[in-house]
């Protein structure tokens, strides 16, 4: 979901390339011109999180990973973004089963929370790091959930646009005001003509809403939206996927929400490489959180 995920490197295989979806608005899926951009409602919040980790040392072959995660919600009033909710945590991740009591005591004296990562039967340094990174990612998601929940509870009428999936929020109070903005298209839910329609949307068009599968969770409604023209570029250029709770209102408001997102195209979030999908307020949260993590930069 957020920047700084350490386990994905270019050239590595995608873990979950395909998933299932059910069309809920139109069948077959179609491209819908949403109209011009609109200003999102005043007081809209924007949420994102970051994570950083590094191997501080080893106990034998066991890596000691020090990590930092943070999440924030900024709210926009009169064009300016201001802090609304913030969470951060610094901690240590170790393969706990491989540590001695003395080594654990030494880590406790550091004064930071210690989380244990999974261990495999045979030692593999990269697999150990991957396991630690999974813990870091989980902690970051937790921080994001906390920050988002605080905002949603504190601002009972405000909308919230968060970077990534809304899956974990769809069941709670205020879920109807949360919009997920997904930039990554690692997992494809559509196929055939529907996929062709979705991936070749023209600028300012959205796809019909579909329900995507979500393992063990409440259903989520989703649709694609093209923010910037992709012609002569990558198919995914300017293509976002929006998520909301699975409710009739999502179908009714999909076009309106899409127009809000089109309204967020300016300012451009350059120099971020994913500027074509990353809206400026989310980009600003990342800048904000990176600036506040001090020596972790």
């Amino acid at each position, binding site marked *: 979901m957020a920047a700084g995920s350490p386990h994905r490197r270019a050239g590595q295989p995608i873990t979950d390339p395909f998933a299932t979806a059910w069309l809920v608005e139109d069948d077959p899926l179609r491209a819908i011109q949403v109209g011009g951009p609109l200003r999102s409602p005043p007081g809209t919040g924007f949420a994102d999180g970051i994570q950083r980790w590094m191997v501080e040392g080893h106990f034998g072959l066991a890596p000691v990973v020090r990590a930092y995660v943070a999440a924030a919600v900024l709210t926009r009033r009169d064009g*300016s973004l201001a802090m609304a909710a913030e969470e951060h945590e610094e901690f240590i991740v170790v393969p706990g089963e491989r540590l001695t009591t003395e080594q654990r005591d030494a880590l406790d004296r550091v004064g930071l929370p210690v989380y244990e990562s999974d261990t495999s039967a045979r030692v593999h340094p990269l697999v150990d790091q991957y396991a630690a990174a999974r813990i870091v990612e989980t902690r970051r998601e937790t921080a994001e959930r906390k920050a988002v929940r605080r905002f949603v509870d504190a601002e009972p009428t405000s909308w919230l646009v968060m970077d990534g999936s809304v899956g974990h929020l769809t069941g709670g109070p205020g879920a109807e005001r949360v919009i997920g903005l997904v930039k990554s298209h690692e997992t494809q839910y559509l196929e055939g003509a529907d996929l062709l329609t979705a991936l070749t949307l023209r600028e300012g068009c959205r796809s019909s809403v579909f329900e995507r599968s979500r393992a063990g969770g409440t259903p989520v409604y989703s649709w694609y939206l093209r923010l910037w023209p992709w012609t002569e570029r990558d198919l995914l250029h300017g293509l976002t996927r929006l998520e909301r709770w699975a409710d009739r209102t999502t179908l009714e408001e999909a076009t309106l929400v899409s127009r809000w997102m089109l309204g967020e195209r300016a300012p451009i979030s350059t120099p971020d490489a994913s500027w074509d999908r990353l809206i400026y307020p989310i980009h600003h949260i990342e800048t904000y959180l990176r600036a506040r993590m001090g020596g972790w930069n």
Partner: protein
Amino acid sequence: MVATELLPSSPYQFHFWTATDATIGIGAIVRVDDGAGRIVHAVIVDGRAYSDLPTPLHEVVAAEGNPAAQPPPTRRVEIRLWTAAVLRQEPPEPVQPVPLATVHLATESDVEIALRMDAYVRAEPSTAIPIGIYSAGGMRAPVYLDADFLLGPESAHLNINGVSGLATKTSAVLFLLSSIFAHFPRSKGQIAAVCFNVKGPDLTFLDQPAALTAADREMYAALGIPAEPFKAVRFYAPFKADGVNLNTLRSHPDLAGSVEPLVWGLREVLDFAEVLLNRDDIDAKADAFLDFLGDRVVGKTFRDEWGGQHRVESFAGLERLFRAIFDGLESAGGRDMWRTHHVATIRKVRNRLLNISTRCKGLVTDDDTAHDLPFGAFDDRALYVIDVAGVDQLGQDLVFTRVVSKLREHLERRDLGVDHVVVFVDELNKYAPADGPETYVRRMLLDISERGRYLGLVLFGAQQFRSQVHRRVVGNASTTIYGRMDSDELAMPGYQTISAATKSKLATLPKGELMVRHPHFAHPIFLKFPRPAALAGRQGIERFPPAPDVPFGEAVARQLRVLDRRIAASGVQDLIDGHREVDVRSALLATRRARPRDPLAFFAARLRPSIPRRTADGGDQSAVQPLKPVEDPYAP
């Protein structure tokens, strides 16, 4: 504070950021306290603002090429990054880069420390002279100059520059003079000021109150200066060519009596003849002859080789001497040398000298009556205004040179009446230009600027363009004031130490604000000052419109009424009827100089016999005659 490898802190400069709505700007004083005993005061000299926009092209893309597109919903994050120049570090040693700490807006006491004013504001006796109010972020603090560095002996002189009409140069100087008169410590001696009014009515109503706003009065109160015009002002002006109407715009009947005539005769002028003669005139031979006249002839009894005895006290007397010399040489068979001086040199000097009274008519008189400044009896905290606005450049040069020279002479002898004199000269670029031929006036100004502080003679000079004034004159001014500046002038090399942002502020400085450089201030400081409590020339003219010139007799009566208001014009007219105007003028000047109890009686007694004395050939003895009179072919 922020410090990066590309933008590090140094012992003289550092950088910090503020909120975009912070009420500070260029010229604000700030304080850095590292909490470990090191305190740094600095002044903001530059500011930058930028957003996270990598290139302007991205803005074009975001607006899809439409500059009129609706503004984006989110404003880009913006930084206000300031650069501050260090004014003072405590402790001063060792000199170190400014520590990374929080930056605060300076308080009133911080301003005092930052500008090193604590050394003289809190001294006993204090030598602090208020110069204006520093203000930033809603905080106001008085700023003081050190009298020892403004008026000597440590350093001295003030130079003020800025464009005409907007820089408030004259206002600033008048306000500062008020401040000096109010705050110059008595223990340092007595002080007076001499101002040359060189254009219009600028300085001719300084004894009259000006309209002040509440804000002005508040500033006067904050600075401890009475908001009132100058209490003791003496105005001097030469006569017009008629010799009785004063050459000044301060001629309104309500005020005319307060203007003293400034009239000089041969004795006053001869020592400064060099001012009036161009460079070609002053060769070694002419100079030697002038010295001869000054040393051996003027004011002394002189016997010529032909039995004549001369007592040269005036231009008329000098003319008689020249005529005797030429007649004597001619009678001696056409000799061409007289007392080692060639007759051509004598003729040249005679022509130039006798021409002075013509060129400076009204200021220089043919006879021996003079009316001068009260050298030797200057009053403490008095302002002497010499109005030469109506006099041509040559006359202005003469007045300026002679007055300043006399001030210097008396200050050297410690018998001027005061211990310090401030001389205010506007249009300094005219008197001490950076280039052009060497002149007597420029040499004198250089001398004052380099030696004046030892004597108590302090030069306050003003000009539009500092770059056009001689470097040694402006360089010796310890205190410099900048009003609104011309941007072309600011591009000159002399301003390269001033930051671009400060220059930008200088180029748009509103009236009533100035930037001051003083030896105690490590960097120039922007200040506000109230408008002078004395009436400005333009308003003065509206309130006191100048009276038209009056006929000779009435003008004489008006002059006498200054001494006794009961004197009637008709009585004066009866007295002067039948007298030559030159005699009337002489009697008038003698009366004004003497200030007798019964002016009219004194005047009548001084009037010479009504029958004019005539030479053997019937000419008027007082008038300058042509050297070789020719017969008028058209005479009846």
